[in-house]
């Protein structure tokens, strides 16, 4: 296999782990990881990275967040319509949590909840993070609830070990093949990366 490496730009820790897992499954190495300051930071850096991509390929992964903002328009506006072929700007529909939940069996086992609680197409969940937290709320594992669900009165929308707990799930149990079969947006990203690898 030809050795490929890529610069990765992400919104946060959890997106990094998901991206790194996907890239590793394709044998693509990450040379530098940037970001971790949310979506607006990625947006502010999109033009710079589009330029960097003339010399080194870049994968930027952002959350769509709301149905009002459709991915092609987002890409168009972030790159001012001049997207470099090696600037892979991908949008998770709606959030990275959708891709995580796309492995329905994996997440059902992890949270120990019935499989049918998780929608067949996770791309259609409106607020995936909130939804994932609400699933964890019904988990039989008390320990997991304390990690993922915000404590009563908290100013936060997630529990104190949300990233840690889900990140570990992605690293050890998340099944990409199963996830691709349910999330169309993940599948498109995977296809794009495969084309990149073959190029």
């Amino acid at each position, binding site marked *: 296999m030809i050795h490929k*490496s890529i610069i990765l730009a992400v919104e946060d820790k959890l997106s990094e782990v998901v991206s790194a897992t996907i890239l590793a499954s394709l044998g693509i190495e990450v*040379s*530098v990881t940037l970001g971790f300051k949310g979506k607006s930071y990625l947006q502010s850096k999109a033009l*710079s990275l589009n330029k*960097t991509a003339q010399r080194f390929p870049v994968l930027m992964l952002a959350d769509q967040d709301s149905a009002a903002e459709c991915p092609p328009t987002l890409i168009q506006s972030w790159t001012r319509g001049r997207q470099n072929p090696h600037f892979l700007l991908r949008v998770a529909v709606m959030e990275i949590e959708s891709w995580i939940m796309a492995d329905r069996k994996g997440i059902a086992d992890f949270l120990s909840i019935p499989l049918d609680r998780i929608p067949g197409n996770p791309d259609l969940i409106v607020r995936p993070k909130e939804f994932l937290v609400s699933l964890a709320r019904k988990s039989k594992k008390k320990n997991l609830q304390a990690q993922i669900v915000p404590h009563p009165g908290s100013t936060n929308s997630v529990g104190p070990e949300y990233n840690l707990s889900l990140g570990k799930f992605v*690293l050890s149990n998340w099944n990409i093949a199963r996830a691709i079969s349910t999330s169309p947006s993940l599948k498109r990203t995977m296809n794009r990366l495969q084309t990149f690898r073959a190029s």
Partner: protein
Amino acid sequence: MIVSHLQIKNWRNFQRVDVELRERQFIVGANASGKSNLLDVFRFLRDIAKTEGGGLQKAVKDRGGISKIRSLAARRDPEIAIEVYLAEASGQPWLWRYSLGLQQEIRGYRQPYLTYERVWNGTKKLLDRPDDQDKSDPDRLTQTFLEQINANSEFRDVAHFFETVTYLHLVPQLLRFADSIQGRMIEDDPFGQGFLERIAKTTEKTRRARLSRIERILKIAVPHLEQLEFTRDSATGRPHLQALYSHWRPNAGWQKEDQFSDGTLRLLGLLWSLLESDSLLLLEEPELSLNAGIVAQLAPFISKMQRTRRRQVLVSSHSDALLSEQGIDGREVLLLIPEKEGTEVKVAADIEEVRALLESGFTVGEVVLPRTKPSANQQWSLFE
């Protein structure tokens, strides 16, 4: 003068290093990647060169012997080597070159000895040991010429350069409780126990000038601080710093250094040493206990100070705030990359992807620091 180029072999956790250095050089790397060990090369040269209580034997002994200094990866070639080039400024041809090789006697007292010691002034070689006398009297090789005033007259500038290297890693507690600890002060005072004596030793005019400059900065950085001054205890004569804080009770606001916060003390020590002299300054993690907003101004402050006194500053750091300054050049950053056979040292600008990103407007903090962090997988297993 500055150290414009450094080469080392088998020094602590480095098998081989060969890098250019600039006036302002930041050293970044994971924990235990060897940032302090790299700075220690210059402290080692200082310890050899210093006229009082210096010398090769002491410098090696203070570090626990050759076996502690030598890289564990040094198997076939047991020699430790250091080579330093001195120039007027970065990018200029070097004026001096000093190199030495070290080994330990295989039997007997296992004393450290020089395998060679060489000095060049430009292209002219001034010293090339072992010479004939060394060969007939091998004991001579237990001392460098650098440490001997009789022998280093031709390259006194080099000896003086090394001798005046300053290292600062101010530990606020040691300064604050200096009186009650009454402990042994480590030579050259790397941890700032004798910081107040250092201030006391400067002439009054210089002291006033420096303190007023520091006061201006502290007034912005430390809420309610209004005035900073140097005093002496009327009974004991001990030097003190005191600051006036604005307070609802008038005259209640003067506080001595033992009441300063860790951050105030560290900032004071840092600013003082930046203004202190024109010799090589080694700063260990200056960001400790400081607010990110202040840390973010350190890099430009160092640069500003360097316009008036050409003091080379080597800074080890983990700080995002310090290194996210737009004005830091990729050539000013050394990245320490731990590998199986010892840590590799690379200039950030020499890593292709990093260079491309820096040229597209990213800062060192954004691009280089993430490479020094443990992977997500490792981070998440930290506190199992």
